[in-house]
């Protein structure tokens, strides 16, 4: 699917066309798994403590342990729920101009774009679990260092190879056109 938008520069009769090459969203799978693991672990720990009141030396210590487990489980669950909310509203866009990562939250829009002309390298990262899930991350870098000022990472995308290929194809065609 592609969409074309056209803009006109002041004092310039030529028209700039930006075509969207690819639009995708991060997958929720890893976050859902982490949320499930957090809640399950918290519940299991709570059940074990309640079933064994003397486990920590005294029932009162077990009560403290249950409170600690409960608080940490709740904090973890809230964290992953908020992340799910943000991920659902996040978009990764590759256009003929650049790569863009954007989301809106509480009436504020966060958008970060890296022009294709600035991209010097790209990385595909897949851990073992990500490979099993069929997801990965694609990082686009404008400097040599992975943590330099110019880098955008598309985290947890389904089929990260196609995202990387879309950018690579366009970078190659840009290089050919300029030669």
């Amino acid at each position, binding site marked *: 699917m592609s969409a074309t938008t056209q803009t006109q520069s002041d004092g310039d009769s030529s028209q700039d066309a930006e075509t969207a090459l690819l639009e995708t969203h991060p997958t929720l799978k890893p976050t859902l798994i982490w949320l499930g693991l957090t809640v399950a672990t918290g519940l299991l720990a709570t059940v074990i403590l309640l079933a064994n009141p003397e486990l920590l030396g005294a029932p009162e210590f077990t009560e403290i342990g249950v409170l600690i487990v409960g608080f940490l489980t709740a*904090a973890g669950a809230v964290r992953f729920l908020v992340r799910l909310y943000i991920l659902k509203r996040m978009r990764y866009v590759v256009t003929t101009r650049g790569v863009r990562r954007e989301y809106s939250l509480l009436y504020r829009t966060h958008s970060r774009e890296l022009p294709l002309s600035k991209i010097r390298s790209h990385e595909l990262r897949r851990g073992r679990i990500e490979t099993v899930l069929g997801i990965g991350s694609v990082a686009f870098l404008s400097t040599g260092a992975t943590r330099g000022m110019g880098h955008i990472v598309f985290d947890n995308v389904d089929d990260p190879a196609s995202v990387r290929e879309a950018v690579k194809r366009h970078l190659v065609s840009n290089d050919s056109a300029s030669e």
Partner: protein
Amino acid sequence: MIGGLARGLFYSLFNPSSFVAARTDTYASERLARLRLTARLTVIYFLNLLLYAIPLTLAGFGDVGGTTAPTAFAGLVAPVVGNPDSAWRFVSSLVQNSAFLTAAAALTLITFHTGVIATRSSQGFLQTLHTVVYSTSAYLAAIFTAVWYLSTSTAVEVADGLLIYWQAEFVYFFIDVLGAPVGLPGGRPSPVEVSQLSTGGTVAIALLVVALLYYLYSLYLGSRINHHTSRFTAGLVVSIVAVSPAIYVVGSILAATTLP
């Protein structure tokens, strides 16, 4: 500003990694920028310190009582405040209430940076400063606040006794291991009857332990994110910070038994 505080509170509870993460690309730039950032982090630390110490001081803790303001101080504040002696007492109490937290923060800074240097992982002092400023401002302050509440509230006396018992047992463990002929001023404490623990005391101790876990975890994240260490190295760095109280106790015991 309120949005920033709310965001900071949210991150400190639900996303500690964002809370302690430093902008390492910024820190990599020139000396003037690094100096500016050091100053900014120092200001952040002292603002948070005041946020912690002012309520304590207003509640009457650390009150040195009956002191007269030095002449220079009185001359400076007299045009602004009505009573220089009261202002001096307030400032003295504020400094006293800030002292323990500042000492603990300084100890954390030294042991944490020693840890990253010893493991040959240091990315710079600013990364350590950023980690420690944020972790101590939030989590260490929460630990001290919980301890203050336990030591002052009459509704949680058993919990307070339990906390004192644990601390004393910690010291006596090393006294027994070293076979040192020393003891604490109150002597070896007797076990606390925990069946008398109130709901408030139970909750206060649980929150104290949670704050301690957050504090250690934030240091772990600081090592991982700001110094790019592995999980094992970050665990090692945190262990160095965690054993520093033990080192302090052992040092105090040895000093008491060897020095004239």
